[in-house]
């Protein structure tokens, strides 16, 4: 049971249960920052807004009124402390980092902390969204404060039980240490602590006293993963929920015109077939049988929403939508460059999936969800139930990269469950995931730098992107609705994200970065680093070319123009550790780039083997990263390694071709995400010492690596890449539509 005076008390008539746990819901000091009514209201009209207020700050501001309710801690009689975390773990290692914060504050062995993922908690409003590299930034204060308050309460309980003063007590290894040195385990105090009345706020430890936070720790869930015991959504057994797949249209957003299911219905194992808004759902005893029956359906389709569009038309639309430069290249020297980036599938290993059990009066949903509150609100509306009748469980996801901000599998599973009147275990096929799932929007970039007398005078970047869908809002229905408004809705949101994430880290005089979006009715979404991978990646290519044009070495040039000593320190680190400028055989080259976002910065130096320009391989990478205060350096290194692999993939080979309203790629044999043979045999990652508060880390690794790889390719081959991925043929026979 989890109750004390600070937690909602069971309604009258509810069974009275024994108080066994100390649970903390309210712990943070009162914070008095107002919630912005709409996100764009907080964006100052300055040339480089992200330096003043980044997207993470916006998310933290939006979450501030509910920050005190964020961390729910339970101290069990077995001494295990459980944190119910209102964020999504999808591989980024936040449960481990959060467990470290709890263990640190409570002087508890890390192994005695459990982290569960909270169900959708609508009372958290805009504070249950996992995105914007924001988890550790947004929970660093609240979790430590909650744990400090729990510790204070345990100390008070020990003092009362043993008739001593709190001031004579300390904590160590999951126990309160009495003045005579005897330990009293937390588990023996939790019941008494839960009965105490009063407010037990306490200041968290100063960072200078941290013994665990800041040290490299392994993942708390690693053993379950390497033994196959870890349970993802589809590994759950929900009574009656049977394997379900959907036959989808031949083009994006097509719909069912007619269906002949006679053959399919007679196939072995088939349990139910029904039409839903997204296609034809098939339920069977096994997924194999469901997929066989799906293939046997005879379906005719209504057209989709982009049937007439292929890459060529989309690219032309983007070029036409690119806003003009302000500075004419008349009296100064200048450098103009243009770049194109293809669509990219998120392609998490675990395809879009969800379990739904919809009844007449209630519904229960299980899925990997990064915005579960708006998922709950939207699902309730879609199936005609009050929100309070819908329970949404957040499952740990098999990858996301932005994908699970959207809850399309969860809503679809709920619709199928309602239509077929049975619980369902819905799995998207890989082909559906790539063709009908979401993707990073394609973009076109136009850049101009002007310079004179050895100085960069102006720097302009015009980004035209297919609309990136932000209709998950800030994770709840109000901002999601704002993002859905026909006039300015999603575009305002997109501008806000663009302006609060992308900034030029160099003193390049007058800098203007402008985004224009082309709304196409297809499925897009934020993809790890949102606009930055393309926008900053393109800028870092331009920086190399600008340096060359101004007769400077790429490193010397960046050192000269970077804004802060902190930025130069990470650059210098990779230059030294990566031996910048060393002689390399023909066809090999080094490349370097820098990126700064979410109060963090990183530099990346790669070496590429491009002896065969059509078959390049990044053979070595050296990365330096400063996130202000690393919580778990081992986890941070993992994030940087993941960002590097994303950059290798999307810069060199991985993208989607759109052909007459549908991506051609349908599996990993066609969408060329990197494999072992495409990745470096030597990777060195250097975490800079802690200097301040935690910055963002989850998306940080991509943009600098994109720039470094592109620059290395240019130096190795003599050809500056303008279109990404660089190697992008249709080298496969597409699956039938």
């Amino acid at each position, binding site marked *: 049971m989890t109750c004390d005076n600070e937690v909602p008390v069971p309604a009258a008539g509810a069974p009275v249960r024994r108080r066994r746990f100390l649970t903390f819901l309210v712990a943070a000091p009162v914070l008095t920052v107002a919630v912005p009514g709409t996100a764009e209201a907080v964006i100052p009209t300055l040339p480089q807004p992200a330096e003043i207020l980044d997207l993470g700050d916006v998310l933290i501001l939006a979450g501030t009124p509910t920050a005190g309710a964020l961390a729910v801690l339970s101290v069990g009689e077995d001494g295990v402390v459980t944190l119910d975390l209102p964020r999504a773990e*999808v*591989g*980024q*290692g936040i449960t481990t980092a959060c467990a470290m914060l709890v263990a640190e504050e409570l002087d508890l062995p890390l192994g005695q902390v459990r982290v569960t993922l909270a169900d959708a908690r609508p009372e958290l409003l805009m504070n249950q969204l996992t995105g914007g590299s924001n988890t550790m930034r947004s929970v660093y204060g609240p979790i430590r404060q909650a744990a400090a308050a729990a510790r204070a309460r345990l100390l008070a309980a020990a003092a009362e039980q043993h008739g001593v003063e709190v001031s004579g007590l300390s904590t160590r290894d999951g126990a309160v240490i009495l003045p005579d040195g005897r330990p009293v385990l937390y588990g023996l105090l939790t019941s008494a602590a839960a009965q105490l009345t009063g407010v037990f706020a306490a200041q968290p430890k100063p960072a200078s006293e941290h013994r665990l936070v800041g040290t490299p720790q*392994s993942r708390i*869930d*690693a053993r*379950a*993963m*390497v*033994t*196959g*015991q*870890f*349970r*993802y959504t*589809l*590994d759950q*057994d929900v009574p009656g929920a049977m*394997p379900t797949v959907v036959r989808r249209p031949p083009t994006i957003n097509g719909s069912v015109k007619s269906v002949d299911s006679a053959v399919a219905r007679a196939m*072995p*194992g088939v349990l139910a077939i029904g039409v839903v808004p997204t296609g034809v759902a098939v339920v069977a*005893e*096994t*997924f*194999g*049988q469901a*997929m066989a029956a799906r293939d046997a359906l005879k379906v005719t389709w209504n057209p989709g929403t982009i049937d007439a569009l292929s890459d060529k038309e989309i690219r032309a639309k983007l070029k036409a939508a690119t806003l003009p430069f302000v500075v004419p290249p008349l009296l100064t020297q200048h450098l103009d460059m243009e770049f194109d980036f293809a669509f990219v599938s998120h*392609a*998490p*290993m*675990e*395809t879009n999936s969800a379990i739904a059990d919809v009844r007449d009066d209630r519904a229960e949903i299980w899925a990997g969800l990064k915005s579960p509150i708006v998922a709950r609100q939207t699902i309730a509306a879609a199936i005609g139930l009050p929100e309070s009748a819908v329970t949404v469980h957040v499952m740990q996801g*098999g*990858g*996301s*990269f932005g994908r699970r901000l959207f809850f399309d599998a969860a809503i679809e599973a709920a619709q199928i469950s309602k239509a077929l009147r049975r619980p369902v275990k819905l799995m998207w*096929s*890989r082909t559906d995931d790539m063709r009908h799932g979401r993707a990073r929007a394609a973009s076109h970039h136009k850049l101009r730098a002007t310079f004179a007398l050895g100085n960069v005078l102006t720097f302009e970047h015009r980004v035209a992107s297919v609309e990136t869908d932000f209709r998950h809002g800030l994770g709840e229905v109000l901002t999601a609705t704002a993002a859905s408004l026909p006039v300015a809705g999603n575009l305002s949101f997109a501008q806000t994200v663009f302006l609060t994430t992308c900034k030029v880290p160099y003193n390049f005089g007058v800098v203007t970065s402008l985004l224009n979006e082309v709304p196409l009715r297809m499925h897009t979404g934020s993809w790890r680093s949102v606009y930055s991978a393309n926008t900053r990646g393109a800028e870092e290519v331009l920086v190399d070319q600008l340096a060359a044009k101004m007769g400077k070495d790429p490193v010397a040039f960046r050192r000269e123009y970077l804004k802060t000593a902190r930025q130069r320190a990470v650059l210098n680190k990779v230059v030294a550790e990566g031996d910048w400028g060393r002689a390399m055989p023909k066809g090999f080259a080094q490349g370097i780039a820098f990126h700064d976002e979410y109060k963090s910065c990183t530099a990346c130096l790669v070496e590429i083997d491009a002896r065969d320009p059509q078959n390049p391989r990044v053979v070595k990478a050296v990365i330096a990263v400063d996130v202000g205060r690393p919580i778990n350096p*081992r986890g941070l290194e*993992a994030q940087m*390694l*993941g*960002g590097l*692999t*994303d950059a*290798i*993939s999307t810069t060199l080979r991985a993208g989607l071709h759109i052909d007459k309203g549908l991506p051609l790629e349908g*599996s*990993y*044999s066609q969408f060329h*995400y*990197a*494999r*072992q*043979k495409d*990745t*470096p*045999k030597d*990777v060195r990652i250097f975490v800079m010492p802690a200097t301040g508060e935690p910055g963002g880390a989850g998306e940080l690794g991509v943009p600098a690596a994109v720039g470094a790889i592109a620059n290395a390719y240019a130096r190795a081959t003599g050809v500056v890449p303008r279109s990404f991925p660089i190697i992008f043929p249709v080298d496969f026979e597409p699956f039938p539509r």
Partner: protein
Amino acid sequence: MPTYTFVVNGKPVTVDAPADLALLWVLRDKLGVRGPKFGCGIGVCRACTSHLNGAEIQPCVTPVAECAGQEVTTIEGLASGEDLHPVQEAWLEQDVAQCGYCQPGQIMAAAALLRTKKEISDEDVDRIANVCRCGTYFRIRQAIKSAAAKM
């Protein structure tokens, strides 16, 4: 429907299934063995990688009929009780897993490789074609080398 008897992780099992039903769905949906993961269904992502008589297979493209009378080992059967296989130990030592979804397949591929080869070169590692969408490849490489050194 035909019946097939084979061994899964040391225990005999008998299932009713169409002959062409992929082993992956027999394991996951009929036997509740959920360690092998679906990632593609056509044997190209290799997330489901397991062993048939000790050799690597992709259960998503292995018809159940081919397993009759054979020994199937999934990630759940790799350790000896609480004693992990050296490859699993190496995975913990290198803290390889991020989302973890592909890792059962990665580990089974590495374990199959190390059964046949004691000295592991970078080229051997490069031939493991399992997709890791989190991009943990470098740590996988280190873990395989570490396991090889200890075995």
